[in-house]
């Protein structure tokens, strides 16, 4: 059985290796930026016979404060980079087995850059698409 909760937690654990970035495997009521939130986006079943392959798509939303536009943009640049200590891609793929819960995973793309309003506060946010094969 695919343990989706364990997969989300494992992605969050990998993200937590980024210095200063909070993580949450579930959408919090009051996010405390900078924070990376892991959400299930979709599932492709029956990639092989007898459920031999299921592809789960996760969305990672990284939310940062907009108190300073310049600082928030530079911060997002670091998270969006394909390498570096704060790279979301490097962090997620640091353990591609997701603690033994997946056959493989890959950060496929940065899908969105924009702003996000939560509790009457505007934040900067970027979203990543992650494919997980189980």
């Amino acid at each position: 059985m695919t343990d989706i909760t364990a997969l989300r937690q494992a992605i969050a654990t990998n993200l937590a290796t980024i210095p200063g970035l909070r993580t949450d495997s579930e959408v919090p009521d009051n996010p405390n930026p900078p924070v990376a939130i892991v959400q299930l986006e979709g599932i492709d079943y029956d990639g092989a016979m007898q459920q031999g392959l299921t592809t789960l798509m996760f969305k990672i939303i990284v939310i940062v404060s907009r108190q300073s536009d310049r600082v928030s943009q530079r911060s997002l640049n670091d998270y969006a980079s394909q390498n570096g200590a704060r790279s979301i891609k490097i962090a997620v793929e640091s353990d591609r087995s997701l603690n033994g819960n997946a056959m493989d995973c890959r950060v496929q793309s940065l899908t969105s850059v924009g702003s996000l309003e939560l509790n009457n506060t505007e934040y900067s946010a970027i979203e990543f698409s992650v494919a997980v094969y189980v």
Partner: protein
Amino acid sequence: MAKYVVTSQSVTINAVDLSADCARAELVINSADVETTDFSSGGFVELQGGLKSGVLNLDFHADYASGGASETLEPLVGTVVPFVLIAGGTSVGTDTPSFSGSVLINSFTPVAGAVGDLATFSVSFPTSGAITKATS
């Protein structure tokens, strides 16, 4: 079961169940065309069925783990091994018949795939000898 959506064909090669690594399975049975056209054929080609042959076409996900498709097929290249294909399930029945016989493992692609894609490979094995259908 009448018409069905393919999700659970059972694919066994050399007694190893490779279903979980297999994304497509197809068994084709052919007959050779033997021409019997003569002066009384009325201007049309006449044919009779000749020797039968078969091809087992499979799409696999590369899997180097023990019992995986890659690990299983690699040492079999050049050999004739038994296969069993069960349509639509793991147990044989009237709605889920099995087709069995032998195939020549005449090719194998140990590494394939473009960057960012799932590693997959396709094989096309000619059958050797008779293909048998069973419903029980």
